[in-house]
């Protein structure tokens, strides 16, 4: 099998981009990535996006973005896996390169969320849940995560303050990231003083609604030499993806992300590594409790100990398990379908040694992207070439 490597990254800051349309964001990130890679044409385009039809009444993003970026008559499609769309699009791009069908592939993740009213945005995000049996009852996506948060605190004896530590860590790291939406450190008190959105989940337990786009260029190790030095190549060493019941209430376990475990095991096996070999983790902290569950489900720690890692300071840049090194979803921002590609870009920065919040000597990084309430999850392992 051909070895897939990322040779270029591009992105826009995450934020409320009132002056920019979905296509502007996507094209900017994509052209930045192509320039970074030194390529002027690609064989195909994969677009990670969750809900452009709802947010901006635009589907057919493959054609839209390839057309406006001047890519010519390439194959181009949108990849949708709810909030894991970006991670899934990266993996589809990698598969195309590995298969030998395509040599140089572009992946762009994009979401334009602030053109919708907030209550409509809340509605569109809930489309990732089970429409007939969850959204029908008026549940928001935040509320589904709040149900899990309450159970997690009860089962393992954690408090709201304990979980707030994940937000504090994310904001501390995001403060160093020029592309992050929030560049200000916060305290546990900031989280506790923020209003309840769905008790016990508060505004600062949740990632913000935002606009943004991120892109990567993927090729083979052989072909990469035509474009960049070895120091700028990052190998996609392993990847896995799995689903769980779309409906939270149908889960056998509410406090374990079965899809994350399966996806991570596939990725570790493909990369030939163990979880202890990984130097940093860009996990899906759309909600603070999901950071804890993610750490447990991908095997960083045992059940119920995820929040303990935060209490012990082990998730900080200088801890044993640094997470959200550029702010994560919580502070960098979470333009849903773009998030998995942002995570990939940030992991590439760490592995090239270019991160503004550098994990010393980082050789292997993991990205984990969750769609739905844990229903569709991607895990990708990136390694310095």
């Amino acid at each position: 099998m051909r070895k897939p490597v990322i040779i270029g990254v591009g992105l826009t800051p995450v934020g409320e981009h009132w002056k920019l349309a979905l296509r502007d964001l996507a094209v900017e990130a994509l052209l930045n990535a192509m320039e970074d890679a030194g390529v002027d044409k690609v064989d195909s385009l994969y677009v990670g996006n969750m809900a452009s039809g709802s947010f901006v009444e635009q589907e057919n993003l493959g054609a839209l973005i390839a057309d406006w970026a001047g890519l010519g008559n390439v194959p181009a499609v949108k990849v949708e896996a709810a909030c894991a769309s970006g991670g899934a699009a990266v993996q589809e791009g990698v598969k195309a390169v590995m298969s030998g069908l395509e040599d140089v592939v572009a992946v762009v993740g994009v979401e334009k969320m602030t053109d919708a009213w907030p209550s409509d945005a809340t509605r569109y995000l809930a489309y990732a849940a089970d429409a007939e049996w969850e959204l029908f009852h008026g549940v928001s996506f935040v509320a589904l995560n709040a149900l899990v948060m309450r159970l997690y605190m009860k089962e393992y004896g954690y408090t709201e303050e304990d979980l707030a530590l994940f937000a504090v860590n994310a904001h501390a790291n995001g403060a160093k990231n020029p592309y992050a939406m929030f560049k200000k450190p916060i305290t546990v008190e900031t989280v506790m003083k923020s209003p309840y959105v769905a008790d016990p989940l508060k505004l600062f337990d949740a990632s913000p609604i935002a606009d943004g786009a991120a892109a990567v260029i993927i090729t083979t190790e052989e072909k990469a030499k035509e474009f960049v030095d070895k120091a700028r190549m990052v190998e996609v060493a392993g990847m896995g993806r799995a689903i769980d019941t779309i409906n939270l209430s149908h889960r056998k376990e509410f406090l374990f992300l079965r899809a994350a475990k399966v996806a991570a095991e596939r990725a570790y096996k493909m990369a030939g590594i163990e979880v202890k070999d990984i130097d940093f983790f860009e996990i899906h902290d759309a909600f603070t409790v999901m950071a804890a569950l993610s750490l447990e489900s991908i095997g960083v720690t045992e059940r119920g100990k995820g929040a303990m890692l935060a209490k012990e300071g082990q998730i900080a840049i200088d801890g044993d398990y640094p997470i959200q090194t550029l702010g994560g979803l919580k502070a960098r921002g979470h333009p849903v379908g773009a998030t998995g590609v942002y995570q990939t870009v940030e992991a590439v920065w760490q592995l090239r040694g270019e991160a503004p919040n550098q994990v010393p000597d980082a050789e292997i990084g993991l990205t984990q992207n969750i769609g739905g309430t844990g229903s569709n999850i991607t895990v990708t392992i990136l390694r310095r070439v």
Partner: protein
Amino acid sequence: MGRPMQVSRYWRHFKEKYRLIGGKCKSCGHVHFPKRPVCPECGSQEIEEFQFSGKGKVISWTIVRNPPSGYEYYKPYPIALVELEEGPVVLAQLTDVEPEEIDFGMEVEMVTRKVREFEEDGIILYGYKFRPPIK
């Protein structure tokens, strides 16, 4: 606001949403809600209808303060995971209860209530909610 509800989209779920009828696997006996074409336990496609009692207990709950558009009318409202006495868990609104009265393990029973209405001339959706049993 979302687009008007298509009547047929709602009508096809009357059995489940009005009467809490789900599925039972003829092969392994697994009961589930709503009824599925394939048993999630054993993969059998031999599924018959199963009438749930409507009795259950709260295993987790939240108060929705920022609802999706179309559900603003009742806000804030409680939503819970309710474990039915026959085993399956369903998500539904709680009704006839104060938020501070809700607790882990609280017994509840199914009632039929208005869930949503679509503008002045639109259809009204009814469905199951759960309340503390009237003793």
